[in-house]
């Protein structure tokens, strides 16, 4: 996966993205996919802890927190403003 592209880790607070592809090699990432972070899911950055890590995302109204290095495994494409 390209590192410089848009990933979950590069979302700004309140910004939404739709997961475009997942680098699923890491079992940890597979676990996150089991929790619903898969292609097609719309994700919003809700907050981050001190220092920007870990980050909390909203996924179908639920909070889910992951670290930046994991968030980087999820490429996102932008969602039309207000779209859900």
């Amino acid at each position, binding site marked *: 996966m390209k590192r410089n592209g848009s990933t979950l880790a590069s979302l700004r607070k309140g910004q939404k993205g739709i997961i475009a592809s997942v680098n699923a090699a890491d079992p940890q990432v597979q676990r996150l996919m089991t929790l619903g972070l898969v292609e097609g899911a719309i994700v919003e950055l809700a*907050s981050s802890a001190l220092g920007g890590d870990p980050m909390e995302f909203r996924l179908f109204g639920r909070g889910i*927190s992951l670290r930046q290095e994991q968030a980087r495994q999820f490429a996102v494409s932008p969602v039309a403003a207000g779209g859900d």
Partner: protein
Amino acid sequence: MTKSTEIRVPANQISVSRRAVASIAVVGNPNSGKSTLFNRLTGLRQRIGNYPGVTVERHVGTLKVGDSSLELVDLPGTHALSAHSLEEQIAVDVILGHMEGTATPDGILAVVDATNLYQGLYLVQQLLELERPLVVALTMADAAEVEGLRIDVSGLIAKLGGVPVCPVVATTGQGVEKLRATLARITELPPPAPGKTWPELTTAARELAALAPEATRLAEVERLLIDGPTEARQDFLARFGDGAEVRLQELRDRLFGNEPPLATEARVRYRWVREVLGEVVQQAPPFYGWQARVTAWLNQPVPGTIGLFLVMAIVFQAVFAWATPIMDVIDSATSMLGVQVNATLGDGALASLIADGVIAGVGSVIIFLPQILILFLFIILLEDSGYLARAAYLMDRAMRSVGLSGQSIIPMISSFACAVPGIMATRVIPNRRDRIATILAAPFMTCSARLPVYALLIAAFVPAQSVAFLNLQGLVLFGLYMFGIIMGILTALLVRKTALRGPKPPFALMLPEFRRPNLRTVLMQLLGRAKVFLRRAGTVIFSVAVIIWALAYYPRSDDVAPFVEQQQQAAVSELSGEDLDAALAQIDNQAAAMQLEQSWLGRAGHFVEPVFRPLGWDWRVSSAVIAGFPAREVVVAVLGTVYAVGDEADEATLSGRLKAARWPDGSLVFTLPMVLGLLVFYACCLQCVATLAVIRRETNTWRWPAFAWLYMTAVGYFGALLVYQLGA
């Protein structure tokens, strides 16, 4: 923190003893309201046991419907049937009928949080493939309404192939009657037809199953396809005859290509879930309640972190401020009781046993019940409101720097109440190395049993003056809490750098919304805690108190009586009036001191005194510390016993007696360096059999409890030595 455990029954006894019509597994995501619903359905008709070999609790309850009954088995919360943690593994094993001592369930009750259908339906979809009768309870129906979610229930039923779906509010009981009626006929329900949601998988499973001579559950074959030929599945694989391995690989290649199977599974299944959600759920503009506003505010990094420290500060403040009045009442009640007993029963061994042994010993521990309950109340509230998960999130970065993850913070915070539930709470940590490092750090957190010791020594030896606007006693106590935290963290760091070296722990955590804690749930858990504590006071501490009393009372000395007689005669012939009374009292005390010194306890104290002498402890402190090894709070009781007699007995309170205690050469025993050293010793030492036992159970070996005990005792001893020698 784990929900309290009451009655422990071996699992195999549970299933045999009941002639339930059918057994139903209750399955659901964590935080879906599963326990609340389970309690609602079964009420008080439930038993708590353990699964064989592991410490995960097995909750079994009976559901009465008409004149028949169903056996409900509450499983640990799980997101999927691909298990990532010990608790999830258990849930999966029970569902698939692999759990020893637990029959394969006849039906499944899936608990789905209506506000989290996305993850809930993922699990339901896997359950659909088990070919077992299934009923779905849609909990949090009230919360869904508030959030503006409109769920088309009959549409959902159609999507699930006719599986009944019952919306309920577990906290109020709304809809539960209908659910009960549906469950009553669960065994008559046709099992869902497989193959609706992921046809390719079902087809592949059928192909493989056709190779086996006997009938094979399709769900099992599906798991085999996804998880692969793991060690545990070798026997199962052998069923499909020679060449099964090759065929399995072909089918897996066809299904998953180069992608990890779990990733493919998530992709396929969530595609179906999104499809269903699109058809059956309508989202009105959500109404943002106070929960959402609180969440939003606490979501900012700085207020969130400050808030966390503030919350902890308030908790510890409350533990002391609120408990004091109640503790005073208990204190005066026990001392009155002791006086009463002595007055009625006179002087003999029995009176001494009851007054000095039982009442003084058990009473000195019972007095801490208010503090312990207040502490537990807060921790239960923090957990039930969803705040502890947020604490884990906020602290992850800090914890990572010491080789742990944010998930370790929950067991650590729980350990401030008691290390036993704290260590049990480590089960949510998926990685074994992190888990053990957390288990080793947890006993350093200042548990409620250390409080009595701290409270006694601080009240006696730290002046109650103010430093800036803070109370010095409170400051010392806070320092001790911090000291425990630092020691715990250093320990984690140490083991993570040596014995438990490994990659940095991962971190992924569902963050629940803030919820108003449910009064019923909170009270039930609190009551459970109170019972555990009182049972402990009634058994362990009672026994230790009696044993210590006996060790201090026997053997009766032959020398004391003649000495007393001689002294008394001398006093009577020389003195009169008040002087005589004083002299007689003095003689009694001397006699008691002589008796104590040559008792078993006194001898043991003298025997070990050389070991503890460098720490500045006399034989009495040494014997109290020795006696405290089974349960550290006992030390207060023992100090109460050994200082109730002898020269210091004139002082009315235990702290007064400690202050008056002297070495034979007349110098004070409890000097500041000695007291600080003693506090350090108590902050470190692992004097708690219950904690050792729970470490043994959770790690499944004696190695870790043995290590923890030796390590913590050594740290405590040398810490105290250092402090005393530097100060003296």
